[in-house]
């Protein structure tokens, strides 16, 4: 291969790409505007706030003393739990796990032995939450509820309240109770209980705990970048046979021509991501700064895909059809257009065979 010709071709293709920048910016902004409307209103569009249902959740904790019983009774009485969760108690962990496997419950909360005393001793014993293998809407509810419970209600306050109630029942001197409470505060119990990792979820996809708007922002970013092929496919299919012949006569084979084109595609896709990044920032869904770096290899993967499409599909009209039917469908069953949890279970299971699903997860991890 004539490397000097390759170098000249890369520069020429980049010059050509630079002339595509205004059109790329317009396409990106149009697609993005539509996406932002969905991202901003995703919660309202996808979920009905007036519809509630209880999620069956298992709980196993040692009930050794009155403190434990009172603590459990308190949690069960919390309004947010009562409305959302239907808690089933299990005497042993194995019983709970069996119920989980049988589908009786959606999640199993395993509170470690001596948890309350551990708190007093300033020990960090995480509460295990075991989910089923597949992500479902219910699992999100449980996880979000538990995390929010820990953070907003503050288990510390619950323990304090329990302590006061128990001590009252046991006729403990109120001054002594106050002393206990002070000790709790001194140990900064609220901090201990709301620290990250208090809950230790198993079989739970930690990317799914992203807020819906951020999940959708990542998915729509991929969609916008993929739809850029509407612009880029004709860009490459415009290549004339004469051009290829001239290049071959100048010592550059088809591989060299495609390498050069791929570089300019990556350049254009990256430019589009910079627009997306800036727009998301302005709209309040700002992605991580490091995503600007990670998007270079991601752009290469998407660029390669667009490239293969441009060369394997006969005309740009067919290419656009393939994108509309193929990619949009793949994105749909990847949870790329609507949250995965809203899809039927059999489609959720298909996700493991879908490369777009992996790409979306990767993009979510990179951006947020």
């Amino acid at each position, binding site marked *: 291969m004539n490397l000097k010709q390759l170098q*000249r071709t890369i520069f*020429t293709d980049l010059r050509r790409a630079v002339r595509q920048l205004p059109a790329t910016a317009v396409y990106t902004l149009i697609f993005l505007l539509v996406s932002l409307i969905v991202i901003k209103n995703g919660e309202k569009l996808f979920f009905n706030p007036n519809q509630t249902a209880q999620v069956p959740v298992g709980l196993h904790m040692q009930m050794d003393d009155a403190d434990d019983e009172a603590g459990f009774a308190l949690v069960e009485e919390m309004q947010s739990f009562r409305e959302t969760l239907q808690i089933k108690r299990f005497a042993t962990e194995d019983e709970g796990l069996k119920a989980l496997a049988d589908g009786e419950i959606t999640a199993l909360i395993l509170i470690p032995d001596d948890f309350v005393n551990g708190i007093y001793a300033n020990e960090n014993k995480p509460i295990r939450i075991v989910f089923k293998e597949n992500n479902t809407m219910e699992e999100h509810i449980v996880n979000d509820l538990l995390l929010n419970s820990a953070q907003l209600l503050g288990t510390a306050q619950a323990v304090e309240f329990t302590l006061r109630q128990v001590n009252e029942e046991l006729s403990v001197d109120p001054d002594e109770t106050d002393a206990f409470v002070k000790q709790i505060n001194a140990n900064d119990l609220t901090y201990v209980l709301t620290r990250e990792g208090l809950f230790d979820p198993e079989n739970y996809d930690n990317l799914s705990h992203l807020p819906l708007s951020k999940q959708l922002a990542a998915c729509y970013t991929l969609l916008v970048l993929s739809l850029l092929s509407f612009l880029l496919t004709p860009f490459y299919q415009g290549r004339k046979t*004469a051009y290829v012949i001239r290049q071959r*006569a100048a*010592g550059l084979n088809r591989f060299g021509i495609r390498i050069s084109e791929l570089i300019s595609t990556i350049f254009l896709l990256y430019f589009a991501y910079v627009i997306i990044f800036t727009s998301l920032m302005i709209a309040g869904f700002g992605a991580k700064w490091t995503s600007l770096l990670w998007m270079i290899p991601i752009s290469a993967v998407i660029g390669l895909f667009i490239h293969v499409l441009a060369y394997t599909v006969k005309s740009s009209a067919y290419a656009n059809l393939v994108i509309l039917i193929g990619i949009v469908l793949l994105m749909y069953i990847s949870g790329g257009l609507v949250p995965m949890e809203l899809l039927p279970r059999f489609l959720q299971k298909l996700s493991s065979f879908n490369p777009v699903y992996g790409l979306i997860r990767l993009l979510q991890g990179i951006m947020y």
Partner: protein
Amino acid sequence: MLSLSHVALKYRKKTILQDVSFDAAPGQTIGLLGMNGSGKSTLLLSIAGVKKPAEGTILLDGKSYADDPRSYNSSVGFVTQENALIDELTAMDNLRLWTPMSKAEIFDTLQNTALSALGVHTYLELPVNSMSGGMKKRLSLATVLINKPHVLLMDEPFAALDLVAKKDILNFLSLFRSGGGITVIASHDEKIFEFCDESYLLKDGAVTHLPQLAEKIKNGTDISELLRR
């Protein structure tokens, strides 16, 4: 000297030309006449080194493409029937794709050498998609000739050109010929064959020499009759 000796060309295992032999000395212009699909363009591709002949040899100054591809490439310029230009870019950007010269060197070459006959230096900053057919053809020619090849291969150079553009190109070809350049032209256009020193008919897979075709055309011979026979 360009020498073709017993060249056979195949397309998908089917022989489309066989036993093609001719020599072209410096300053000579060779015309290839033939119907569509007769193998004219394929023969030019082989001379350009893009398509390897199934049999026979193609030598330029005694060396084949395989002996030294880089040197061969720099000695042969190929003007394809369809232009190889990038429509969104300017004439200058297109020229820079095919030559290591700087902008100043390109401008100097186009203005102060025989290439000035093409007039490309007057529209260097014009995008290709704003050019007429004649301007594109002249630019195509310039992108090839900017590297000063010894052999110029042209596939249907007059297709869809107006009279002025044809005249400009013929003027340039006269200069190229007088400078010792070898030209091989595949065409249907009678005007071209008036200009050629030697002409060959490509028909039914065989190549036939047509002696003194230029004189015959000037005397009123209809070349379409040659194709019909």
